[in-house]
């Protein structure tokens, strides 16, 4: 198991609610390989966000083990970057100040150059002085990605980062994420409820079921990159995953046109 970057064993997480104890995660086991793109998909409330927040180190109350490079995770650290569903940029800071914020402590002389380099990476050169409220949702999320990448994390955690974007922007951003992943060679873990998004981006997809949240199945996505959403193999695989969620496609894969 030394090849795996992230190792989750018998993870169990429960929290107290008004009516008693709620089990959010039960017996979760997962291995993420170095440089892999792994998606976790499931319906809302299945515990997928809880899982990625535990990997991020935002909560320490759990049983079982989460190990990164063999070391137990005890809290957030710069080896893991995170992008949330909302961009979470500080509205009182400009784009460049928001990204530079992540470099706190590091008194690097070329802070500005580093910020610009990462703005370039997400295609936002020229927007250094803009405030978050002047950006579109997609642009703001690009800034959030740049902020998460500037500390060169080993693992990038993506908690439904494209969930709030419109369908067209989302597809655009999926392409950007795919090319970022190839360019930067960072291990990425994406939480999503979008099957197509998971198929478009991932090497493997972990399917979660809810109550209690657990990983039901991990499937390989043996599709060549760059991927095409309309290709036969893509569609076939998509139907396979949809079946996991009891969503049946129309009777025949071939669409019938009304003429």
């Amino acid at each position, binding site marked *: 198991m030394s090849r795996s970057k992230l190792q989750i064993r018998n993870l169990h997480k429960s929290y107290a609610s008004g009516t008693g104890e709620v089990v959010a995660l039960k017996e979760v086991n997962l291995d993420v390989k170095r440089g892999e793109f792994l998606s976790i998909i499931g319906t809302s409330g299945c515990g997928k966000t809880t899982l990625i927040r535990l990997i*991020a180190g*935002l909560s320490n109350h759990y049983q079982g083990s989460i190990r990164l490079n063999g070391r137990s995770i005890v809290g*957030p650290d710069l080896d893991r970057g995170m992008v*949330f569903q909302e961009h*979470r940029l500080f509205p009182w800071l400009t784009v460049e100040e928001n990204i530079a914020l992540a470099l706190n*402590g590091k008194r690097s002389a070329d802070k500005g150059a580093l910020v610009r380099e990462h703005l370039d990476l997400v295609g936002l050169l020229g927007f250094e002085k803009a405030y978050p409220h002047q950006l579109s949702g997609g642009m703001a999320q690009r800034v959030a990605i740049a902020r998460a990448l500037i500390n060169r994390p080993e693992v990038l955690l993506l908690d439904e980062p494209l969930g709030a974007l419109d369908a067209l922007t989302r597809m655009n951003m999926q392409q950007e994420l795919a090319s970022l992943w190839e360019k930067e060679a960072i291990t990425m873990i994406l939480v999503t409820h979008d099957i197509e998004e998971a198929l478009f981006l991932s090497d493997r997809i972990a399917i979660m079921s809810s109550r209690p949240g657990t990983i039901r199945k991990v499937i390989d996505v043996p599709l060549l990159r760059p991927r095409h959403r309309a290709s036969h193999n893509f569609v076939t695989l998509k139907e396979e995953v949809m079946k996991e969620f009891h969503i049946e496609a129309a009777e025949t894969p071939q669409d019938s046109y009304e003429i």
Partner: protein
Amino acid sequence: MSTNWSLAKRMEKVIDLLSPLVLPLVIIAIWGAATKFGNIEKVILPEPLQVVETFVSLVRSGALLDHLLASFVRIMKGFALGTLAGVSVGIISGFSRRVGRLLNPTIAFIRTIPIYAWIPMLILWFGIGESSKVIAITMGVFFPVHLSTEEGIRNIDVKYIEVAKILRLGRLFVLRKAVVPAALPFIITGIRLGLARAWMVVVVAELIAATSGLGYLISDGRQLFQPDVMVVGMMTIGIAGVAMDALIGRIERRALKWRVRFEGYREASL
């Protein structure tokens, strides 16, 4: 067409500029009519014109400026001290739960006692000179500033704190870059309330014991049956207060330019 349109736009600007004056003019008109046609004694309510004359003569003699300056200096001392103390204690007691638990119940207890109830005590301790007045103003400013600063600090969205944790930002850095900027709208509102409070306290303190200041001018006017002097004193306080508040408003807009603010609907209808 375009000239018509810009004319309409210019008209709107003029209306926007003049609309704050409508209510004062109506009030002055009613006041003038009441003194002219109503059966009101001049020692109860002076005519508007009489007030203007008194104002001019008080300006000419320099007395009004002296009184205004006396009040203003007291206010600035107390306002500066109270704001400084209120913001710093508010930031600390908002940022640290333990300090908050230590201080807040006591602060809440003292806050509920009207500052005016403190003035006799403060005179007893510090005499009838400047210090008792400045301390009273400081106290009057401190409480609203402290309360809104702390509320502002506690009001920051936890989502930003999570980002700070993910990025491993130091606490002081978070305070500087996230918590205080997020609280700034609250802090400035507190400072505005504090300034209004400073004017109230200074006038009360000057009514009780003083030989200068606008509060003293009003109290002197009452003793000499000069209601016109009283009105001049009151109006000067109002104008000075509005001017200082407008100044803070300008600073606020500059400091909070990152914010998209609701400016109210243009139309009056619901």
